[in-house]
């Protein structure tokens, strides 16, 4: 990555496109704190977040999903979500001394919320299944559900609908739009141009580690540089 400068406006769905190897996933990993940048800054909601460990960035409200789902294999689907919830009583052992009575109460709340999120992505029936037994598409849904469970304000989605059948993909995208209307910000990488052009309000094009251009979908579609480097004639 070099000379890459971009902004994502709140409460939008912004797309990130570019050829393979353009640095899309790398950029996401830098933003989420998984990779440390050599130079440059990452700002989120008025605060600098580069250099913070990934879990702190999550606590600030910025979360990322993995392109290849990284579920907790030997935990159940529900447990996967419960782990992703914001810190609750009983996650630190000191809580046993400070607030022992909150543990059971908060646990019940997290269960309720996890079940709600599961329902919203259509995985309710798989509640007590081991995550390792899910299909590829279901794991993608679980990945999204985990991100939502953390109560983020902005979600980085790395190819959220790649390899998912069209009906389910559509369902996921509708869910995303609904959440956007509720005030969440999405920044997503996607190779399916129909999806990107139809669902994103703003598109950023990345090429060889730098931002090539950005704009509304129609402008991007008509941009000769983009056609040249990515979309093709």
């Amino acid at each position: 990555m070099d000379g890459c400068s971009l902004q994502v406006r709140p409460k939008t769905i912004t797309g990130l496109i570019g050829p393979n190897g353009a640095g899309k996933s790398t950029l996401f990993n830098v933003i989420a704190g998984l990779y440390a940048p050599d130079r440059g800054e990452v700002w989120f909601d008025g605060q600098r977040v580069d250099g913070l460990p990934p879990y702190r960035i999550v606590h600030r409200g910025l979360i990322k999903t993995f392109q290849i789902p990284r579920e907790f294999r030997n935990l159940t689907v529900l447990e996967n979500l419960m782990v992703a919830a914001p810190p609750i009583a009983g996650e630190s052992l000191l809580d046993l001394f400070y607030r022992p009575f909150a543990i059971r109460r908060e646990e019940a709340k997290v269960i309720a919320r996890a079940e709600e999120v599961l329902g919203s992505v259509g995985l309710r029936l798989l509640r007590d299944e081991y995550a390792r037994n899910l299909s590829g598409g279901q794991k993608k849904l679980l990945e999204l559900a985990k991100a939502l469970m953390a109560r983020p304000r902005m979600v980085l989605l790395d190819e959220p609908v790649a390899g998912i059948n069209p009906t389910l993909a559509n369902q996921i995208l509708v869910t995303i739009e609904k959440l956007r209307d509720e005030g969440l910000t999405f920044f997503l990488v996607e190779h399916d141009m129909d999806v990107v052009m139809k669902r994103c309000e703003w598109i950023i094009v990345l090429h060889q580690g730098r931002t090539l251009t950005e704009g509304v979908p129609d402008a991007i579609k008509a941009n000769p540089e983009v056609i040249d480097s990515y979309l093709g004639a």
Partner: protein
Amino acid sequence: MSEIDYLILQIAGFVIPATLLVIIALGLNLQWGHTGLFNAGVAAFVGVGAYTFAMLTTGRFNDPVSSWSHWGPPTPWDLIPAVGVAMLVSASLGVLIAIPTLRLKADYLAIATLALAEIIRLVIKNERTLTGGDQTINYIPRPFGGFVPPGWASDGVFVLVAAAIAVGALVAMEFLVRLPWGRALRAIREDEESAMAVGKNPFRLKLGSIAIGCAVMGLAGALTASYGGSVHPDSFPPFLTFTAYVVVILGGSGNPRGVVLGGYVFYLFTWTTQQLRVYVQGISDILALRLDFINQMVIGLVLILFILFRPEGIVPEPKYIPKRRR
């Protein structure tokens, strides 16, 4: 000696060492079974617990003839605070070695703890003024030592004490792994980076797992010292670490109850070998001599078979199903 007395001694001879092994394995299970941390220095943490307890409960020893001594307190401590300190020292040692290595890849913890075990053994052996060196620390008291005469009565009491402590450790472990804390540990075991990406601090969680696991090992060490009545630098060989892993893998990594079962099954086998030797001795002396090695070969074979065909152990990790919302 009456038959009952003999029977108690026999039972104690099996139950106590097996129970001590179970407690060690419970500590290791939290680190390995639940958190996926490869602690290769189990023997060191047990040994440090044993030595701490031994030094505190025997007081400062000064032998004018051989001029060796150890840094115990002027008067021997009561047993319960000594156990507490032993646990604390083992836990602190674990945390101390974990802080620089936990941030690195998993392998480094294994290397560091393996080295630590050897360092600890050599330090105990050579720092004569600190630990008594190669001299054995003797006369380590047993619980209720003042009221119960040595022999079968003392062994019987020790069986009860050890069993109570093992049950306590089991209950504590089952409780801890069901907390949100335990769930987070399992998430880290499955995929540390992914856990970090949903807001978990792996370093802090792993440090807790190390501290508690090592404290339990220190507890087992204190009991071992008390039971044996003496400690020596070589009482805690690296083989102990291996044994603890066999117990955890056999019983079921990630399942405290499985580990308890694994501990008794494992020790039953070793104990049977020891008993067998008595009978074999009359028939074939050579076979009797080799029985120990055959025992270890069989353990190795069983371990390989388990890893190949039943890696989850005798009692696999349970599926944790949170209560349904009403």
